[in-house]
């Protein structure tokens, strides 16, 4: 009961600090922008800890955050090996391949209205193929190692990037296109000097959506066959062993990596599309 009351108190305190920070005079400073979500996250973690202790939740159902942190500390080498296998090999390679394929198809489709109309609905259909169905197929085709994970990731990120790129390439205004026409500019100059730059905000939208999909895809695909390393492998194996602290340690790594990946994309986007009104 004590713990529960304490949990509620911590929650109120965290919220109160955030209200002050977010509405205060300094709310637009970088530090306040970083602090507010951090305090929110910290509040959740502390409340979680208190609730696990207060209700004496079995560690095989939900471990306490302190156990998870301890596990992260003690299993750094394993986590790093898994990270390399899943993120650096499976997710990243798949992401790059999927994105490259999406660009290529988008540019191809964009050359003809006919192809665009045909590819988008079919692409939508493919994107609706659930990963738990496709992952075993790719594992069957490409083996258990990271190649099959990269393929799953590639397929998952392909569609959002394709759709956004196609939409972006269409986003030029009639006037911008007419201008190119008055210069008697050919297809490639128009593509590189007009349509790709103006499509950049859309493309980044797709790339950002792709980041979280890439991670999830690589991890989940490992459930269906893998070498004895990898985040998905570790999650499923540790879960079978009821080592939930390890499961959550991997989830934390996944969330950190995912957020970092997303954050990096946002930074690149800021640099590349600095001119777009949404970035000013």
């Amino acid at each position, binding site marked *: 009961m004590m713990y529960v009351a304490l949990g509620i108190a911590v929650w109120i305190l965290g919220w109160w600090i955030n209200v002050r920070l977010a509405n205060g005079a300094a709310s637009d400073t970088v530090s306040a922008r970083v602090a507010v979500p951090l305090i929110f996250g910290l509040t959740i973690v502390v409340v979680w800890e208190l609730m696990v202790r207060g209700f004496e939740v079995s*560690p095989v159902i939900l471990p306490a955050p302190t156990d998870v942190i301890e596990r992260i500390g003690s299993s750094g080498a394993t986590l790093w090996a898994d990270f390399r296998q899943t993120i650096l090999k499976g997710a990243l390679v798949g992401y790059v391949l999927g994105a490259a394929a999406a660009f290529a198809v988008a540019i191809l489709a964009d050359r003809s209205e006919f192809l665009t109309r045909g590819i988008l609905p079919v692409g939508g259909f493919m994107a609706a193929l659930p990963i738990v169905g496709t992952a075993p197929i790719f594992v069957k085709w490409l083996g258990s190692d990271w190649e099959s994970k990269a393929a799953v990731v590639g397929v998952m990120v392909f569609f959002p990037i394709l759709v956004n790129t196609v939409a972006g390439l269409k986003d030029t205004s009639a006037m911008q296109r007419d201008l190119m026409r008055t210069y008697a500019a050919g297809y490639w100059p128009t593509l590189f000097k007009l349509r790709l730059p103006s499509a950049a905000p859309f493309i980044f939208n797709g790339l950002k959506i792709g980041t979280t999909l890439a991670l999830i895809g690589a991890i989940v695909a490992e459930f269906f066959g893998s070498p004895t390393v990898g985040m998905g492998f570790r999650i*499923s194996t540790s*879960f079978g062993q009821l080592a939930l602290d390890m499961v959550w340690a991997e989830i934390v790594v996944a969330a950190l990596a995912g957020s970092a990946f997303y954050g990096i994309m946002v930074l690149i986007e800021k640099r590349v599309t600095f001119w777009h009104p949404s970035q000013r």
Partner: protein
Amino acid sequence: DGHANTVTLQLQWVTQSQFAGYYVAQDKGFYEEEGLDVTILPGGPDIAPPQVLAGGGADAMLNWMPSALAAREKGLPVVNIAQPFKTSGLMLTCWKDTGITEVADFKGKTIGVWFFGNEYPFLSWMSQEGISTEGGEDGVTVLKQGFNVDPLLQREADCISTMTYNEYGQVLDAGVNPDELVTFKYEDQGVATLEDGIYVLEENLEDPVFVDKMVRFVRASMKGWKYAEENPEEAGGIVVENDETGAQSEEAQIRMMKEIAKLTAGSDGSLDEADYQRTVDTLLAGGSDPVISKAPEGAWTSVITDQALQ
């Protein structure tokens, strides 16, 4: 209380003849005769039965003993109350043309293994044989095997884990002749561990009401098992009826039942202490990263079977 006559059983895999005894007991009314209302929860690749037990989602679970003992060490005191499976059905199935004839030939080969708490027997075995599981010339490369036999058929792996009653049959169904294969039964290698025991939470055994309903449950279940052994055709049919996915074929389940019958044959439901000791010894031999660090205490009890078999 109101739960005196209700039992929820968590299986460790999807509905198949591996669990025929329980479905038969249900279907033939053996549970009803004992005044029990039994719910059977199928399992699947993401279900850890001990966790379900811990969460209170089931009164009893089926599990392989290595996994159950590991859960015990993790702080979840589960206790074996009955052991309908006498013999292990686990084996490695290899292509003969890879040149594998004996265990020493595994070196340098790729082997598919089930994880999810079921990797312990394999790791112990390899450690007893002195074969590294880290790959390389003198070790085996381990694959986390999915739920099918494709790694073998596609020759991604030289050997895979199979159950005598299920995956092995699937390899044959895929058109492979038995003489193309070499098999290594854990039972024959002396590293067999107990499979498919019935486990409950230790604390529940202090409750006489619970004990009483488990006695009835085990009694009825064993009746189901024995019936299934004798009537594999009917049992297979009952399993297929209970399969909600509608994807199982009666023929395959009957064949599976016939294989299962060989494993349950020697058991009246009570655990043979020698089998238990062999399981523990195998697991304790698990090299640098043993499954269990010391011989467990109180991991099984004959209280239930003693009463059930009176």
